[in-house]
């Protein structure tokens, strides 16, 4: 690191927890030395507040040991106002912060003074930041800093990734080169599948069936991390673990929905070595120091090999010994997927989707932030922005569109001339029309779009636990609750009491089984590379060494139907429960299979087949309808499907959710701030209405362009449907059988069924409405009116 200390940018790749963070600070400590000048020298950015605080402790020890007069401070949303003020007036030598706090600092008028003299930036967990818009925002901020401090040097620290040069282009100032230092990856992990006496269930996640085996492993190891893919699954697992924990092994839980106090308690106990195991989610993926972890258990298929490798690295990371990891498949499909993932880990075959260019909603926010700090010159800002790796291919026209959006709303109808957000001064510089807008911009900084969440609190005025914050649930989940419903929160069962002032009030429940637990965490889709490995695995001349129950199941599928193949799409048709069923095996990942469900049911609606609903997994989409699909080509026609994106796909809820995210980041709509939304609910309306209105009257608007771009990736996964159609070129295996096939059976048990709002559903609505009216005796009252006036043709 020291040999390369004068490089303008440098990237260090080392396996999880290889001590790389301290290495990143070495050049700074050497430069600061025994007699540092006052002022900010090094800025450290990490994706987690906790990581910044952790790093302050880790840095302070060597600095004190060496007796260096170097001031190290951290700054985040949790830092007190007084300390934040003091930091702006008199910055420390080393400031540890997050991308959002940095963006906020850059929005202040005194930003040039705060950052004067800054020499170095260290970006930690770069691989994680680069996966989201937070990374794009950070790179724009670094460009801003680079303009203020031309000699600024960057160091990026990353865990093992599949394409280091791409990540280097992301972090380096364009077009400067970026040297990549690869640390010794260490020995291969000791990784295997956790086998159990009971075979895994047919569907679902969570791995509850393996509680005894997991407890046994915990007992045999010093400290075990038990990773789950979603918060809800972590909650259920933790609860069941405790019910079975006869020896009372100290086990904690840690995930992002828990209240800060709860999380801190677990972290402290972990560091003190008081816990034998922690049930956790992605919130522990990043490099916090967790002491002597000697086993990692991944519950459920990891969906993505790179993430699995990074998680495995959590075990034994301080020693040059192999990390020990066990994967627990949560259901029958995942047995195959876990096997494929383990093969990929041992083959060092990492996966990942190539990054697209920097998103424009983030750029819009950056333009606003820039205007808050000082009037700016558009040419200079364009040059600065294209110096950021993710925006190096941005065109001037795209930049101008964003500037126009920020200034005027960017509507074809120029309605807001009087109210422009940015105005051009006589000298050509752009400034905020109303300086008071700066406050609002600052409140909206950041690119993390939380699904709207509500706090959960223990009800009551007295008693030890009264008013205690427990965590958060999604607003949609809270809205579905009726008093008396029970769910899991922080490992305990709570009963929903009421929704008060936008807080969910609960009480403790003595029951053993919660009624619901559906607040969702992140939903990952199985990566393209892993899907290909699974298809490949199914077609080996000799099936690999899988448990007997799984082998039998695969063989039965081959007998009854076909095994899905890489170059073809398998479609099965059968009747079940007096409904026609169609199962499409696209292996395109859950998000894309879900989108495929929306698209295919639309085609079916047009063909009059009466689709009623569908459900999707990473491998397949199961659709039920009134009539059968007789020719799958009719519903899987590539051209028609592609047209679909422009037309009706635009109408679905996922698209609207993407729009809401982009609109919030770009500053079209203001975030729901606490306390701001409780008043007059009929006055607020949903962003869906804005989306529909824009589509109707201004279809080329910038935000719709952004929404469409995002539809190709992420939640909608249209890019992967495209990939699937290209891969299979219209080659379809259509199997018509008289029974539910072995591979389709688990889909019937899958949660997350999506209703189709077509003619079929409208008929159901009518039936249900009629039933309710009949039951309540109100129907007679209405019938008189209807008879008296005849039908609607009489309105003229």
């Amino acid at each position, binding site marked *: 690191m020291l040999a390369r200390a004068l490089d303008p940018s440098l990237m260090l790749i080392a396996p999880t927890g290889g001590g790389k963070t301290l290495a990143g600070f070495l050049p700074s400590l050497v430069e600061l030395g025994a007699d540092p000048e006052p002022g900010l020298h090094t800025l450290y950015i990490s994706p987690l507040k906790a990581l910044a605080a952790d790093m302050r402790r880790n840095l302070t020890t060597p600095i004190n040991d060496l007796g260096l007069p170097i001031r190290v401070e951290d700054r985040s949303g949790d830092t007190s106002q007084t300390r934040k003020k003091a930091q702006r007036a008199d910055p420390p030598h080393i400031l540890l912060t997050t991308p959002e706090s940095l963006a906020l600092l850059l929005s202040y008028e005194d930003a040039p003074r705060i950052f004067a003299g800054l020499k170095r930036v260290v970006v930690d967990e770069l691989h994680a930041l680069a996966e989201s818009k937070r990374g794009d925002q950070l790179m724009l901020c670094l460009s801003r800093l680079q303009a203020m401090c031309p000699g600024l040097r960057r160091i990026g620290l990353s865990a093992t990734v599949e394409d280091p040069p791409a990540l280097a282009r992301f972090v380096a100032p364009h077009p400067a080169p970026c040297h990549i230092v690869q640390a010794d990856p260490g020995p291969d992990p000791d990784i295997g599948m956790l086998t159990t006496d009971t075979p895994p269930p047919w569907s679902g996640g969570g791995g509850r069936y393996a509680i005894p085996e997991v407890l046994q492993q915990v007992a045999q190891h010093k400290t075990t991390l038990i990773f789950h893919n979603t918060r809800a699954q972590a909650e259920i697992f933790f609860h069941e673990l405790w019910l079975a924990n006869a020896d009372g092994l100290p086990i904690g839980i840690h995930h992002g929905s828990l209240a800060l106090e709860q999380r801190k308690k677990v972290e402290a106990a972990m560091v003190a070595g008081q816990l034998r195991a922690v049930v956790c989610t992605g919130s522990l993926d990043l490099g916090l120091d967790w002491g002597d972890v000697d086993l990692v258990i991944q519950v459920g298929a990891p969906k993505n090999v790179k993430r699995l490798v990074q998680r495995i690295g959590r075990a034994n990371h301080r020693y040059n010994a192999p990390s020990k990891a066990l994967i627990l498949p949560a259901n029958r499909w995942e047995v195959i997927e876990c096997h494929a993932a383990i093969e990929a880990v041992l083959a060092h075959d990492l996966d990942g989707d190539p990054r697209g260019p920097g998103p424009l909603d983030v750029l819009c926010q950056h333009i606003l932030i820039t205007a808050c700090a000082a009037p700016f010159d558009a040419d200079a800002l364009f040059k600065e922005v294209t110096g950021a790796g993710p925006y190096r291919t941005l065109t001037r026209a795209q930049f101008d569109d964003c500037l126009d959006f920020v200034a*005027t*709303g960017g*509507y074809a*109808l120029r*309605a*807001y001339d009087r*109210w422009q*957000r940015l105005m051009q001064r006589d000298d050509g510089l752009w400034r905020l029309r*109303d300086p008071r*807008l700066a406050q*609002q911009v600052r409140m909206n900084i950041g690119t993390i779009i939380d699904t709207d969440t509500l706090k959960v609190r223990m009800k009551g005025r007295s008693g030890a636990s009264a008013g205690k914050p427990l965590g958060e649930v999604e607003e949609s989940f809270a809205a579905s609750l009726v008093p008396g419903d029970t769910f899991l929160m922080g490992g305990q069962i709570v009963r929903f009491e009421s929704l008060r002032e936008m807080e969910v009030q609960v009480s403790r429940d003595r029951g053993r089984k919660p009624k619901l637990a559906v607040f969702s965490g992140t939903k990952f889709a199985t990566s393209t590379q892993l899907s290909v490995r699974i298809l490949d695995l199914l077609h080996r001349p000799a099936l690999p060494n899988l448990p007997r129950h799984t082998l039998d199941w695969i063989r039965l599928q081959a007998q009854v139907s076909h095994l899905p193949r890489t170059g073809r799409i398998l479609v099965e048709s059968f009747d079940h429960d007096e409904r026609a069923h169609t199962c499409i095996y696209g292996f395109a990942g859950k998000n894309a299979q879900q989108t495929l469900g929306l698209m295919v049911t639309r085609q079916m609606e047009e063909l009059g087949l009466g689709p009623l*609903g569908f459900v999707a997994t990473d491998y397949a989409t199961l659709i039920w309808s009134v009539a059968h699909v007789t020719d799958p080509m009719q519903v899987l026609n590539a051209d028609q499907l592609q047209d679909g994106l422009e037309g009706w796909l635009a109408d679905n809820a996922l698209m609207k959710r993407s729009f809401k995210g982009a609109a919030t980041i770009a500053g*079209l*709509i*203001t975030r729901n701030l606490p306390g701001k939304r409780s008043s007059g*609910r*009929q*006055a*607020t*309306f*949903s962003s869906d*209405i*804005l989306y529909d*209105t*824009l589509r*109707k*009257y*201004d279809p080329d*608007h910038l935000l719709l362009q952004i929404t469409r771009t995002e539809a190709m990736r992420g939640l909608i996964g249209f890019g992967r449907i495209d990939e699937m159609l290209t891969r299979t070129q219209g080659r379809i295996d259509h199997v018509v059988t008289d029974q539910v096939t072995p591979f389709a059976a688990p889909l019937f048990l899958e949660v997350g*069924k999506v*209703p189709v*709002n077509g003619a079929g*559903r409208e008929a*159901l*609505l*009518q039936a*249900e*409405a009629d039933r*309710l*009216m009949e039951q*309540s005796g*109100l129907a007679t*009252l*209405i019938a*008189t*009116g*209807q008879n*008296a*006036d005849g*039908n*609607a*043709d*009489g*309105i*003229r």
Partner: protein
Amino acid sequence: MTQGFHFTFAATQLMLLPSGALWWPDRTLLCVSDLHLGKSERIVRRSGDMLPPYESRDTLGRLEEDLRHTNASTVVCLGDSFDDLLAAQNLPEAEILWITRLMAGRRWIWIEGNHDPGPVEFGGTHLAELHETPLTFRHIAQDGATNEISGHYHPKARLQLRGGRVSRPCMLVDANRVILPAYGTYTGGLRSDDAALSDLMREDAIAVLTGSPPRPIPMPR
């Protein structure tokens, strides 16, 4: 073909149109509530947020459609027709002309609402309430009133179906009163199970979900 929901209220035959407008065939009277015209202009003025400025033309487009179907001779705008009085003044020229065109040749009544409590610079009649025997039209429902048509609350209702949920703006009806859904494009809704609405409506009230055709259900509480 327009499919409406026919019902008898105060011995009067009425119909809720799919759009949420109320049609009184005997008087050829069309009533719409809470248009909130000029809402995006008021929002930018107050908060700086620049929402798509198309909601007034969308609302007027739907109103024009309903007028074409019914050929109403009387139109009652049941209050909160404008998001505030300044928004009424600041409407773009094209939309002012559009409103004037819709009004031409019709008896047009602007009922005052809490958002637009004073007269606006449009023709027609400005009233706090309209008594059109046997019905009374006012913006906000009054305790103890009967034969009353009002708006204000933007009621909406939810219905749980097998494998999904439907939530739509709705009209609430009981023996004493009718509460109309908001007609304006940028309007949210207040769920019928909110105390404000369940306290107002009798036990046997029904909610009629807007849409084609409108669907009556027992009012969810």
